[in-house]
C-alpha cells in the first residue's frame, strides 16, 4: 500500500500537459497545446521547431514570463518538486533570475540601452541576495572574466552599444548565471550572432553547464547546432511535440516526417548532395485555425499513406521505440522505411 501523501518522484524539470492560449480579436491562438516533457538534473534538452511552433512560448511559460492577464495558461510545471504555474507572483519572482534564468535571442535589444552592463548584472544579484554594492561588483567582475570577457574591469562600466554582439551575449550569460540557477533556458542564443561567434557561445554554455551543474533547455530552429549540445531533443510543430528522443537517436533514426524535413533543410558542407536541398513545402499553419487532423498533414509528403486518418483525427504522441516518442499516423514500419530512405539520400547515397 502506498500512502496517499507519498511524494511523487519526478524528474528535475517536468512539464505536464502545458497549454498556453492567447485570446485575440481573430480568435483563440493556441500557441502551446498539451506539451509534456521532462529533463533530468544537469542534462540538456533542445526544443526544435520553426517560428510559431510554440517553442519560445513553452520556454517563456517555464520561465514565468507569460503574462497571465493576457494568456490562458494551464497544465503543470514542476521544478525540483515545486509546481510553478500555480505559484503566486511574488514567489515566482523569487525563483526568476535565481533558480531559473534565461538568455535571449538578441543580446543588443535584451540589454537595457541606458544602463552600464555592470550595473545591470549587479541589479540581478541584489534582486535575490543582500550583497553590498562593492561585493556585488567584485562578483560581477569575476563572472565577466569567467564568461571570457577580456579586461572585465574596463568593460564592466561599458554600455551595451559599446560591445560587440558576441560580447553582449557573454554579458547576458554572465547575468543569467550570476545567481547559479539550477535551470538555464537559452532561447535561440546564437541566432543573432555571427557564425564564428555562434560556436564560441555554445561552447561557453556547455562549459559553464559542466561547472555549475546547470540543467539547460536550448530553444533553437537550427538542428545543425543541436547535435553537439543536447542530450535530448523535442521537435515541436503547431504548438505540440511531434517527436521526442535522445539526440543520438533523433539523428540516426528520426521517424516523424517533419523531423525528416528539418534534417533535409540543414545545409551540409561535407556532402555533395545529388539534388538541391529539399525544404518542407508550404508554411506553418495559422495557430488560430489548425487543421482538423494531424497538424502537419497539409505539408506532409506521406500523408496519403495513412489511409485518410491524418485528415480526420489528431495523432497521439506514442512510444515508437524505448524512450522515443512520435506523433504520427503512419505505421511504425512505414515511418522507419521512409526514414532510412531519406537518410540515405542525405548521406549522398542514391535514392
Amino acid at each position, binding site marked *: 500500500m502506498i500512502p496517499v501523501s507519498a511524494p511523487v518522484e519526478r524528474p528535475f524539470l517536468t512539464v505536464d500537459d502545458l497549454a498556453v492560449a492567447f485570446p485575440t480579436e481573430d480568435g483563440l491562438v493556441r500557441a502551446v497545446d498539451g506539451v509534456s516533457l521532462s529533463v533530468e538534473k544537469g542534462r540538456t534538452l533542445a526544443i526544435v521547431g520553426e517560428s510559431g511552433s510554440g517553442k519560445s512560448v513553452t520556454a517563456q511559460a517555464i*520561465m514565468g*514570463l507569460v503574462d497571465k492577464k493576457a494568456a490562458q495558461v494551464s497544465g503543470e510545471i514542476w521544478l525540483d518538486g515545486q509546481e510553478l504555474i500555480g505559484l503566486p*507572483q*511574488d514567489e515566482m*519572482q*523569487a*525563483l*526568476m*533570475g*535565481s533558480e531559473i*534564468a*534565461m538568455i*535571449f535571442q*538578441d543580446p543588443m*535589444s*535584451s*540589454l*537595457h*540601452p*541606458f544602463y552600464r552592463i555592470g550595473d545591470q548584472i549587479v*541589479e*540581478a544579484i541584489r*534582486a*535575490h541576495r543582500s550583497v553590498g554594492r562593492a561585493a556585488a561588483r567584485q562578483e560581477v567582475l569575476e563572472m565577466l572574466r569567467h564568461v571570457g570577457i577580456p579586461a572585465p574591469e574596463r568593460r564592466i562600466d561599458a*554600455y551595451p*552599444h559599446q560591445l560587440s554582439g558576441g560580447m553582449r551575449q557573454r554579458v*547576458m550569460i554572465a*547575468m543569467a548565471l550570476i545567481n547559479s540557477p539550477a535551470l538555464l533556458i537559452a532561447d535561440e542564443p546564437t541566432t543573432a550572432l555571427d557564425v564564428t561567434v555562434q560556436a564560441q557561445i555554445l561552447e561557453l554554455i556547455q562549459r559553464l553547464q559542466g561547472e555549475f551543474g546547470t540543467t539547460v533547455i536550448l530553444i533553437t530552429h537550427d538542428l545543425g547546432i543541436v547535435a553537439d549540445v543536447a542530450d535530448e531533443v523535442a521537435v515541436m510543430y503547431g504548438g505540440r511535440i511531434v517527436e521526442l528522443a535522445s539526440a543520438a537517436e533523433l539523428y540516426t533514426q528520426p521517424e516523424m516526417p517533419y523531423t525528416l524535413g528539418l534534417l533535409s533543410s540543414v545545409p551540409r558542407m561535407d556532402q555533395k548532395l545529388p539534388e538541391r536541398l529539399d525544404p518542407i513545402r508550404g508554411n506553418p499553419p495559422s495557430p488560430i485555425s489548425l487543421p482538423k487532423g494531424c497538424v502537419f498533414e497539409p505539408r506532409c509528403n506521406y500523408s496519403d499513406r495513412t489511409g485518410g486518418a491524418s485528415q480526420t483525427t489528431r495523432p497521439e504522441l506514442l512510444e515508437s521505440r524505448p524512450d522515443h516518442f512520435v506523433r504520427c499516423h503512419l505505421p511504425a514500419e512505414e515511418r522507419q522505411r521512409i526514414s532510412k530512405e531519406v537518410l540515405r539520400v542525405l548521406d549522398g547515397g542514391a535514392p
Partner: protein
Amino acid sequence: MLAYLVRRIVGMLLLLFLLSITVFFLFSLLPGDPARLTCGKSCSPQIVEANRHRLGLDEPALTQYTKFVAGLFVGRTYSADSPDPIECSAPCLGYSFTRREQVLSLIARAAPVTFWLAIGAFLLWLTVGISLGIFAALRRGRWPDRVVMGISMVGYSLPSFFIGLVLIFFVIIKWGFLPFPSYVSPFENPVQFFQTMLLPWITLATLNAAFYMRLTRNQVLEVFGEDYVRTARAKGLPERRVVVKHALRAGLTPIVTAAGLDLAYLLGGAIISENIFSLPGLGSLAIGSVIQADLPVITGITLVTATLIIVMNLVVDMLYAVVDPRVRVG
C-alpha cells in the same frame, strides 16, 4: 562632447543670422507704408516724409538691415540729425514709434508674464499628461484606459478660446470662485498671481495635456514590448521596479524632446490665452503690434521667439545625450 557643442553653437549662430535676414526682408516686403502709419488721420505728406527720414525708412533695405544688426551690438541713434534724437542702446532690437518705446524694453516687460504662463502650463500638462498616460498604459484595454483616452480626445477637440471663455463664464462670473484676472508679479502678490494664472494655465495646458496623455501611453506600451523589459522581468525584479526603472526610463526619454520644444514654442507667447485673460505677455504684445502694424515690434518678437526655439532645440539635444548614453558623441 565639447567639439560637438562648439559645432552646434556655430551652426546655431549661422541659423540666427539667416533667420534675421529672412525676417527683416520679409517684413519690409509687406504692403503698406510704415511711415504713413506713424501719425494719425490728419497726417500731412510733409510729416510722413519727415517721419520716414527719422525712421531711416528712406534708406535702401540693405542699409536698413546693416543698421539694424549694428544696433544689436553697439546700439544706434534714430534721427541723429534732428533736434530730438532717440537713443537706442545696445542690444537695440529697434524702436517702436507707435508706442514711443524701445522694442527690447517692451519685450522685457511682456516676457515675464509669458514666462510664468508657459512654465505653469508646462508643469501642469506634463504632470497631468504623463501620469494619466502611464496610468492608461498600465491598464491597457480596460475601462480606466478608455476613460483616459476619452478625456484626451475631448481635450484635443476643444479649442483653447472655448475652454478659456467657458472657464471665465462659470468659475469667475457665475460661481465667483476667482476674482477677475489682473496680472501681478508672483513676487509682489503671490495669492493674486495664482488666482490670475490658474485659469490661463488650465486653458493653455489642456491641449498639450491631451496630447501628452496619448503620447505617453503609446510610448510606455511600446517600451513594454521591448526585450530589455522582458530581461528585467526575467531577473525576478518586482513589477514596480520593472516599470519605473526599466520601462519608464526608456519610454519617457523621447517625451523630453517633445516637451522642450513645446515649451519653447509657448515661450514665444500664447496669443489666444493671453488675450482672453488680458495678460500683458508677448502674445498680447504681438497681436497688438500686428493690429497697429508696428513693424519693429513684430520683427523683434519674431526674432526673440525664433532664437528661443533654436536655443531650446540645442538644450533638448544636450539633455537627450545626458539621458541616453547611445546619443553621446565624441
